[in-house]
Every structure is written in structure tokens, then in C-alpha cells.
């Protein structure tokens, strides 16, 4: 892993991988969306609105994956002083936050026809909303502190404390909701998923994952360029 610590090596690799990654993403999305809109059947209870699942479930999955990646990169940054780890954590956060928002928004749109309401303080919805707040806090640190090294040091702590407390929050929210469970909302939990829907969902999860990876690589590339630009400007100022 230390080999990719050199940004030039990393950039070369990223540039080589990215076109293929975009291609795979496009193919997976074409396949997944075709399955979502054409081949997969409408649900016997929810009707056509079940198709929202194919964009909703992968989004929430990526939102959690991105947070895990962010915390992992922060740990790597502390333990190994890997120079790209901070940049990886920093760039994963906004993408993860967008997917988190997407999961909440699509869930809300899905909730209106099926649950009859835009928003429910259900355990899952609530913990997803808290995840969004944690993302916002993490991004705010990078915005609030101008000096990049200091911002990185503080952001690592925020990400790691968040990942330590996150299981406690998740557990407490689950506990809280089961205590006050409104049984009218979750009647049956729905039928277990049919294979004709399952493969579409899995393809969509893969498509979202490759999309996330591609966006993350592009974002990392931009971050490295921004750093170079900053140090070049500083060198220019010092030279004068």
C-alpha cells in the first residue's frame, strides 16, 4: 500500500483504471435499470412503486459503505501516516453524504404511496438521518479549518469518534423505536424477495458501488491536483 503513497504513482494507476471503471458502471447501470423498469414485476401489494427499491436500497448501502471507508482511511492516516489516506477520507465524505441524502429522499418518496406518509421516525430512517448529520459534521470540519494539515488531524478524530459511537447510536435508536413501535406502519414486513427482483437489486448494488469508486477516484485526483496547486502557489509566494 505504501507504494501508492506517491501521488504520481497513484495518479497513473487511477488514470489507467478510470475509463474501464466508467465503462463497467455504464454497463451495470444499463443492465440494472433495464431490469428495474422492464423485466422485474410490479409488487402485488405496492404495485409499480416497488421499483423505487432499486435506486433506494443501493444508495443507503453506499452511504454506509462510504462512512466505513472514511473511518478506515482515517485510522490508516493515524496509524501509518499514509499521505493519501486523509485525502481519501475527505473525498469520500461528500459523496457518501449525497448517497445518504439520496437514500433518505427516495425512501421518503417511496414512503408516501406505501406507508402513506413522507417521513416516519422509524429506527432505520432515524439512524440514516443521524448518519447524514455525522457526514455534515465531518464535512464542516474541513470547511471550518483553513490549514489543511490541522483540518486533517481534527477530521481524523471526528471520523474515528463517530465510528466508535455509531454502533451505540444505531443500537439505541433500534431500542428506542421498538419501544414505541407503531405497528400500523410495518404490518407484514413484505414478502421475502423474489429472484426476479433479487438479481436486479444485486446488479444495481454493484452499479452503485462502481459508480462510487469511480466518483471517489475522480474526486481524489482533483484533491491531489488542488494540493499541488496550493503548494505551487505557496512556493511562488515564497520565491518572490
Amino acid at each position, binding site marked *: 500500500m505504501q507504494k501508492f503513497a506517491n501521488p504520481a504513482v497513484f495518479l497513473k494507476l487511477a488514470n489507467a483504471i478510470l475509463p474501464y471503471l466508467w465503462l463497467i458502471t455504464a454497463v451495470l447501470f444499463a443492465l440494472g435499470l433495464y431490469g428495474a423498469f422492464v423485466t422485474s414485476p410490479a409488487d402485488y401489494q405496492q404495485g409499480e412503486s416497488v421499483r423505487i427499491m432499486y435506486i433506494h436500497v443501493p444508495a443507503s448501502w453506499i452511504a454506509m459503505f462510504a462512512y466505513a471507508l472514511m473511518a478506515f482511511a482515517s485510522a490508516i492516516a493515524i496509524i501509518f501516516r499514509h499521505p493519501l489516506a486523509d485525502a481519501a477520507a475527505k473525498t469520500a465524505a461528500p459523496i457518501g453524504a449525497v448517497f445518504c441524502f439520496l437514500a433518505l429522499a427516495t425512501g421518503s418518496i417511496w414512503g408516501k404511496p406505501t406507508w402513506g406518509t413522507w417521513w416516519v421516525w422509524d429506527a432505520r430512517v432515524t439512524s440514516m438521518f*443521524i448518519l447524514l448529520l455525522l457526514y455534515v*459534521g465531518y464535512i*464542516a470540519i474541513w470547511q471550518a479549518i483553513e490549514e489543511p494539515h490541522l483540518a486533517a488531524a481534527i477530521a481524523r478524530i*471526528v471520523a474515528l469518534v463517530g465510528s466508535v*459511537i455509531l454502533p*451505540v*447510536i444505531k443500537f439505541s435508536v433500534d*431500542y428506542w423505536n421498538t419501544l414505541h413501535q407503531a405497528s400500523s406502519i410495518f404490518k407484514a414486513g413484505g414478502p421475502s424477495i423474489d429472484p426476479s427482483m433479487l438479481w436486479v437489486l444485486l446488479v444495481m448494488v454493484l452499479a452503485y458501488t462502481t459508480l462510487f469508486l469511480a466518483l471517489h477516484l475522480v474526486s481524489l485526483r482533483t484533491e491531489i491536483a488542488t494540493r499541488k496547486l496550493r503548494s505551487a502557489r505557496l512556493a511562488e509566494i515564497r520565491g518572490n
Partner: protein
Amino acid sequence: MISPAIKALLWRDLTLARKQGDGLGAALGFILAVIVMVPIALGPDPILLQRLASGMMWLALLLAVLLTAERIFQSDFEDGSLDLMTMTNVPFELITLTKALAHWLTVSLPLALIAPPLALMLNVDSGTLPMLWLSMITGSLALSLLASLGGAIAAGLRRGGLLIAILILPLYIPVLIFGVATTTLMMGPQSAWPALLILLGITLLLLVVSPIACAAALRAYMR
């Protein structure tokens, strides 16, 4: 057993809090404002107030503590006292822990201690009042530890208040849930002890995590 440096620091912080007194005063004013405004906003119906009382007490305590979070490290950071504290032979984590404890003793604990009469003003059920009191006293330490974490993360920032709120509010959620759960459980047939014990567990977890994270953040600012 306790090193003299820690004792001196605790004494210093307690004295400073006593002489200045603005931290507790502001927080107390906030709680009083909430207790007075809630019945006016929601109507004086005793049954409604009884249902909301413990939640409102917890919310008032939590936000009042949040209000004082910015001050915990800021003045010591700005006048350089914190730099001196890093130079003692005491681990810096113990120093941040001591400052969090001083905050608990001077702000959160007094606020939790005066809760019963205020809760009675909100018509809290007198059977659940002892448990509410106990849970607020236990949880107030967790609130102070989290507030010190927020204060440390925003110590070097000019206007850290909003940032502290964004960062710390999600972390307050478990404390709030189990704090309120103790009293809601008592209204039903279940025992309130499990919720109280979990609240205690969360407090103990924070007792470990918070000083370490505080010390790391403050070290980053002072480098």
C-alpha cells in the same frame, strides 16, 4: 493516589467557575426559560405536561450543557495555560478528563441536581421522579464528557458554537434515548434498571473515549 497536579487543576477550575459563574448562570437561565415557555407554548393541560415532562427536562438539560461546551477549553487554549499543562508529567488525557470533570461538577451536575422542583412544575409523576433524577445525575456526566469533546474539537476556531452543535448533537442521542427511557419504562410494567444501567455503560464508554479524543484534538491545535 491522585497526583497533586490534577488536584490543583481541579481546584483551579472550580475556583474559576465559582468566581466567574457565568457558565452555570447562562445554562440555568436557559433551563428556566424552557420550563416556563413549554407550558405556555403547549397549553397548561396537566395530563399533556405529565407525558412530556421527563423528555422536556432531558432536552433542557442537554441543550443547556451544549450551550456551555465552547468555554471548556477555549480560554485556557487562548491564554496559553493549556500549553503549560502539556508540559507537566501528568498524561494530557488525564488533564482533559479533569477539565471535563470540573465542567460536570460546576455546570451539568448542579443543573441535574436542581431538576426535581422544575420537573414538578411540569407536573411530572411523583412516582417516576426519583428515577428521573437518578438518570439525569448519571447522564449529566456523559453530557459533560461529550461537551468537552465538542469544546476540544472547536478549541482553535473563532466561532465554534455551530460546529459543536452539529458534531455533538448526534452523539447526544444515545444518552437522551436511555435517559428518557428510564422514566417511560417506569410508567409501564417493566423495570427501569436496564435502561439506567445502559446509560451508565454509555457514560463509562465516554469516560474512556472522550479524554483521549480531546487530548488528540487539542494536541493537533497546539502543534
